[in-house]
């Protein structure tokens, strides 16, 4: 049949003029097999249909598989829909619809086996279908359930494929199928070798499928099977698992476990004793075993299989795994290919991890950079910094309530969040922090008071449930490099935002009049004041700037995380640690701190992927230790600026 199908594939390239009733006539020659198809007999019919080159064949096969083909009393075949007592008949050649009473018509009901055979035959038509969507669907259905019979039609359809993406996909799929199903060993090995550069999940599944093994045992290691490896009970598998295999093959009696012993003892109590052991003494394992041994001796229960018995039984047999694939040449090739794929996957995973870490570092950087200004440059501990982040995120949420376009709303939300938190920061500086510049510990407590008040206020206004901050559609989805390496666009956007802010802040601090004055006030407020700078004004603006950036960070964080009243609290400790680890008073230090913490956290998560809480715990412990050795952080200020 496959050869016929290839022929058909070539034939279908042409479009022969079709005469009316051609398909009907062809079917009539096989009327009996079509009306009552069997799994074996239907093959000839399908071959004939396929080789006929009639374009309606595909439709007919679909309807046939769908049980929508009816036979008229005269023996003609129609595609029909039941409509009450009558049938809407469609001519299988011309497609002309007529209506007829359903008396005398019989529905063709091919059984499941036949329908599968029809389905396989259909694939080749669908693979060649002029409609791109149908071809894609057909390819996808092959990928879902690969079968040996699909290989030839797939190969045949590659040359005629016009769409380049689909063609590449077909070639890839054909490779998978040949690796598993090609008849010629050389073809299979060639296909397997070509998979060694493919890191897709599918390719790995194909290779793993070839390399599946089943456990087996024998007294002597057989030579005529494809052995994957010899298992050493106690090292490669547990002794009990090995013994279970013996039990499963009826080569040994099951182990007598504690529950069995207990049940046996409980059902053999005679006059308050089991054997000669009083029931009251059965509270130890030794006494229970002694009582059971006595029962076994008298034949009441099967003898106990002890660990010694188990080990003796195991010693008699060799355990090994055999490949389900019999040909060692193929399994060797697959093993080599899989090893090469896994190396590539490992490299890919490292790259993916690095991207993840980078995006986490960007988030920490965004959350901490505002703090780096207020804490680092001004020396003010602002525990309400996290609440400014929250305020920014809620600003974004409120903007989205009024502006339905997500793109526009984000563009408006960013400066608005800055404005709102800038104002809040300035107000806080004027009302509270100004009075506490010489009492840093009290600043910490006062700002904490503001923090809990703001948090509760947000809860009162917006409720406790998480509010959505939806990103625009162009930020949905992910940039997929391959099955291993991918990163969502939103994380890329956050990364870009972090980079923009890094340079913006560097620019403001180093290249503008405001930055100059900020640095002057930081270094020596008295001297700065005598140079005509107003330290009050500068402190206010600096604090506002730091808070405003927190607001923008809030919008960014809200886009990928949930907006809740507690979101700020989640970031505050990490933000402080980012600043402290990086080195206070230095934007580059914050960058270094964020990178260190981001990469560290992702690294620890990678070592123990199931447990992100543990990763955070160990990261904090690491930071505590790190500060022991570099109390001034990674980028420590030197000279006079370092003196506090």
């Amino acid at each position, binding site marked *: 049949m496959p050869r016929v199908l290839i022929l058909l594939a070539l034939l279908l390239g042409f479009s022969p003029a079709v005469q009316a009733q051609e398909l009907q006539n062809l079917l009539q020659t096989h009327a009996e097999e079509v009306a009552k198809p069997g799994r074996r007999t239907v093959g000839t019919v399908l071959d004939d249909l396929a080789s006929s080159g009639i374009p309606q064949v595909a439709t007919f096969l679909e309807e046939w598989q769908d049980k929508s083909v009816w036979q008229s009393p005269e023996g003609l075949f129609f595609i029909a829909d039941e409509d009450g007592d009558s049938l809407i008949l469609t001519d299988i050649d011309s497609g002309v619809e007529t209506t007829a009473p359903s008396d005398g018509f019989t529905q063709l009901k091919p059984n499941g086996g036949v329908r599968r055979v029809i389905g396989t035959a259909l694939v080749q038509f669908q693979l060649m279908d002029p409609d791109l969507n149908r071809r894609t669907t057909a390819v996808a259905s092959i990928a879902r359930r690969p079968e040996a019979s699909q290989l030839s039609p797939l190969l045949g359809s590659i040359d005629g494929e016009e769409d380049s993406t689909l063609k590449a996909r077909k070639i890839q799929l054909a490779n998978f199928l040949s690796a598993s199903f090609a008849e010629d060993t050389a073809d299979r090995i060639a296909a397997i070798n070509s998979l060694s550069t493919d890191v897709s999940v599918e390719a790995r599944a194909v290779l793993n499928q070839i390399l599946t093994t089943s456990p087996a045992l024998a007294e002597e290691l057989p030579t005529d099977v494809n052995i994957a490896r010899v298992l050493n009970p106690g090292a490669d598998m547990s002794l009990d698992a090995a013994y279970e295999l013996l039990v499963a093959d009826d080569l040994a009696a099951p182990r007598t476990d504690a529950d069995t012993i207990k049940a046996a003892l409980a059902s053999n109590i005679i006059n308050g004793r089991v054997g000669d052991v009083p029931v009251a003494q*059965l509270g130890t*394992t030794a006494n229970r075993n002694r009582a059971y041994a006595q029962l076994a001796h008298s034949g009441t229960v099967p003898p106990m299989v002890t660990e010694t018995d188990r080990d003796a039984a195991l010693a008699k047999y060799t355990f090994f795994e055999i490949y389900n694939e019999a040909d060692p040449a193929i399994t060797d090739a697959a093993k080599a290919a899989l090893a090469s794929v896994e190396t590539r996957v490992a490299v890919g995973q490292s790259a993916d991890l690095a991207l993840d870490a980078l995006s986490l570092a960007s988030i920490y950087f965004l959350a901490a950079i505002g703090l780096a200004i207020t804490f680092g440059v001004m020396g003010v501990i602002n525990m309400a910094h996290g609440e400014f982040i929250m305020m920014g995120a809620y600003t974004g949420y409120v903007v989205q309530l009024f502006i339905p376009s997500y793109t526009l709303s984000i563009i408006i939300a960013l400066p608005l969040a800055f404005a709102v938190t800038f104002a809040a920061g300035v107000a806080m500086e004027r009302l509270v922090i100004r009075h506490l510049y010489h009492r840093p*510990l009290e600043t910490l407590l006062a700002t904490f*008071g503001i923090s809990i008040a703001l948090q509760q206020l947000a809860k009162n206004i917006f409720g406790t449930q998480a509010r959505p901050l939806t990103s625009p559609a162009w930020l949905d989805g992910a940039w997929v490099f391959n099955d291993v390496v991918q990163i969502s666009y939103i994380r890329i956007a956050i990364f870009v935002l972090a980079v923009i802010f890094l340079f913006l802040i560097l620019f403001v601090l180093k290249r503008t009049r405001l930055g100059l004055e900020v640095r002057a006030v930081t270094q020596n407020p008295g001297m700065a004041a005598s140079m005509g700078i107003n330290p009050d004004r500068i402190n206010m603006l600096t604090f506002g700037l730091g808070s405003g950036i927190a607001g923008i960070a809030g919008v960014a964080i809200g886009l990928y995380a949930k907006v809740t009243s507690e979101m700020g609290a989640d970031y505050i*400790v990490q933000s402080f640690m980012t600043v402290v680890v990086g080195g206070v008073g230095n934007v580059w230090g914050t960058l270094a701190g964020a990178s260190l913490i981001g990469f560290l956290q992702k690294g620890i998560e990678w070592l123990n992927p199931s447990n992100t809480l543990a990763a*955070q715990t160990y990261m904090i412990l690491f*930071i505590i230790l790190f500060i022991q050795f570099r*109390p001034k952080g990674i980028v420590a200020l030197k000279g006079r600026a370092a003196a506090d």
Partner: protein
Amino acid sequence: MNKSFLIRNPSTLWFLLGLSIFTIVVTILSDAGLGIMSTSFVKTLGKTLCLCLIAVAMDVVWGYCGILSLGHFAFFGIGGYAVGMWLMYARTEGIVLDSLATQTIPPTAQEITDAIGNQIFGVVGSSEFPVIWAFSDSLFLQLLMVVLVPGLLALVFGWLAFRSRVTGVYLSILTQAMTLALALYLFQNDSGLRGNNGLSGLQNIPGFEDTPQSTISLAFFYASALAVALGYVLFAWVTSGKMGSVIKAIRDNESRVRFLGYHVESYKLFVFTITAVVAAIAGALYYPQAGIINPAEIAPIASIYLAVWVAIGGRGRLYGAVIGAAFVSLLSSWFTGGGAPAIPLGFYTIQWTDWWLVLLGVSFVAVTLYAPKGIGGLFDYLVRKPS
């Protein structure tokens, strides 16, 4: 100079007198006397006393020594966990033995352990006893752990931190990080302490199953009052005399004390560790009255509230910490418990359960700004006016 420190600190005697009167009044009002006061309120008062004790410890480390530790609630929690492990083990053992006694065959030691493990750790999908539960069958060893574990933790942490001269806000952030790390660790299911379920049923004291809760709560109230009295006297002694002067001097100017030849780190380490131990003892008394402990109790916010109590009560005076803790925590439970009447404004009704934290935050800012001496500062007027 040879006068007792108690004579030099009359406030200590006044405090002890007040505490005794308070204890007697509560006894009279409780079920043991007139029966006016409910058992749950006795418990609340007992818990408040424990909070007063940790507040006194916090006051010594912050108000006297100038170390703003945001980690003392972690020690409080560890103390609670240590005693909770014994309470939970012993109680579960009793239940398991009762249920296994109905079997025809007496259980083996292994079966008993497995059944207890299943009962305790089934909720986190495990039945194995973690290593840290090794001593949980012994009340004495667990009580020793109440003191030793937080003591050692504080010793190691303090030694590391003070040695590298981490001071001021950096130390605060570091202690906060320690608390956060501990809380996150305890939140894990495989931490061996039942993850976020925590330890529960701690109000049932093994061996006293038939004693009514009213009696147990009164007993714990006395124990808490005694602990507060002893802790207060201990810290009054620590903060008086020469050592007290050095400690206060460290708060005011660490460098000068160092230049005078004192080993500042040792003093700080001593204060940090001893307050941690007292905090743990307070926790060990608190949680059997609360009945449940879970990692959320240790979250960094709890330690910050502790600082809030001390600041509102008045730093640098021990009775200030007691007043602050008692005042704020009782007020807090009155407001959040729905005790305070709602205020209708016409367009909006202020429900205090929603607005209490806002009020607390704002009043805290106000206290920090305008009354740095806290409520305790009022006593200065009382004392000074007559003289």
